[in-house]
């Protein structure tokens, strides 16, 4: 189980109606079902992963979040979770808007491209960074829109959504991100976790 699942779960209220966008094999869905008694649905692009979710008794729709979120009416869910996939979309802005249309709140996690290892990797090797959380080569990566924690904070100002809570994951420890420590968290945070609202 990914370390951020516990953090995501802590951001969600009990019995909430939740949509997990890009729910993968349903691990987070199961966790939220057990821990928060969440009424949880998933959307997943991979047929194999959908099969795994069905085998776990989870309600999952096979689909592409970039196009298939529009089938949900406004405010269908209390929370919509988007775990580490924002960078893979053709149009992240549309996806964020759709998340916040479909859900009252959204939880977005991003692998931080501003992490020091990534920076050093590029600085010294002069090639596109490959790290544990970003294991692909530049030519086969699904991650076409990488951003840093700082970029995401700025993104909220540019496309106008509210960041309700922002957290950084550093060595499996979670800490708050605020204006005064943003530079530090952007250097050491492996993952940014944001609770956002319209």
């Amino acid at each position: 189980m990914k370390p951020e699942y516990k953090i995501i779960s802590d951001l969600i209220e009990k019995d909430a109606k939740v949509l997990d966008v890009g729910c993968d094999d349903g691990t987070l869905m199961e966790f939220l079902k057990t821990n928060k008694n969440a009424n949880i649905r998933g959307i997943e692009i991979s047929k194999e992963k959908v099969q795994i979710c069905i085998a776990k008794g989870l309600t999952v729709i096979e689909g592409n979040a970039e196009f298939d979120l529009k089938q949900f009416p406004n405010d269908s869910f209390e929370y919509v979770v988007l775990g580490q996939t924002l960078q893979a979309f053709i149009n992240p802005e549309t996806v964020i808007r759709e998340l916040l249309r479909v859900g009252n709140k959204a939880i977005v996690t991003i692998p931080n491209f501003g992490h020091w290892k990534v920076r050093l990797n590029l600085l010294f090797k002069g090639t596109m960074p490959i790290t544990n959380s970003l294991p692909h080569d530049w030519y086969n990566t699904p991650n076409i829109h990488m951003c840093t924690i700082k970029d995401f904070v700025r993104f909220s100002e540019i496309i106008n959504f509210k960041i309700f809570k922002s957290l950084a994951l550093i060595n499996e420890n979670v800490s708050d991100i605020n204006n005064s420590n943003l530079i530090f968290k952007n250097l050491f945070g492996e993952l940014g976790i944001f609770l956002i609202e319209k």
Partner: protein
Amino acid sequence: MDIKQNIKTLIVEKPLKLDCGQTISNFPLAYETYGSLNNEKDNAILVFHALTGDQFVTGINPVTKKDGWWSYAVGSGKSIDTDKYFVICANVIGGCMGSFGPSHENPKTKKIYGTDFPVITINDMVNAQINLLDFFGIKKLFSVVGGSMGGMQVLQFISNYPDKAKTAIPIACTSSHSAQNIAFNELGRQAIAADHNWSDGNYNSKNIVPDKGLAVARMAAHITYLSKKGLQEKFGRKLQERDDLKFGFDADFQIESYLRYQGSVFVDRFDANSYLYITRAMDYFDLVKQFNGNLSDAFKNTKAKFFIISFTSDWLYPTQENKDIVIALNAVGANVGFVEIKSDKGHDSFLLNVPDFLKALKNFLDKSYAEKHL
């Protein structure tokens, strides 16, 4: 047609007002069951058959002596596990395996109905079958399942009886028959009508059958159940028991021979007038129109958990039409899962050995059954 021995029949006494305006009562509804109903009576699954199916879902069909039409999916230890669930399937009204249909005698005229039989709809079929629940003392089915026309019945059933099933699995179907669907059905009907033996539907009294027309109808329909790729891989341009073309009109190609065979075996088990009536029922099916253009309204009162399944190579009821049902369900916040199964076997995939499909079906049912709090 064989003499209908071994056919269980419920005589439905309660009058049923059909969509065409006529009312029928004391009509036979032929059915079969598999597995056993538990004490709580909460393990029943009503399976709806497709156009040319019947109540003999699995095992050996006692009339045709062949495997039941859904033997891959239904049986001991299979997706719809008869060790666990009580499976009920009825022959649709309008059909020809014992249920009230055009080959029955009209009590008023003492003649076979033929085309005097009332035109029936998917709605009528479902409203006839709801009587099976009372008959077995079942308050709520565990599931309603069906592919193709069976899937249409699933949708209509939930719409008519929103609290009579815990789960619903419409497979490879649509909420509204498309122009292309109607076109293929019309082709079949015209093939039957063009057979001189059809005699405006009165062939029974002359002891003849429009077998040529019915066979052509089946051949045309059969093509729509397969995919181009599937046909190409199975038959290609392979020749039928010959080394070269014969420069004539016998079946040179294996695909020709295959279709002719499919047509010939079909006429032994199916009634031409039933084919007209059931295809008509499918063509009239338009759940979207029934709810004034908003399909979601068909499902707004149900708490049933849905699982929609489509197949990549199904061009008769393509994925998008199945997804439209998912979208309509999401619009009313229904509990709906969806998967598109990869298969080259076309629309027929749901009847065949497609492991990913059979696995998904089994997992959905077994996991839902385990959730007692549903």
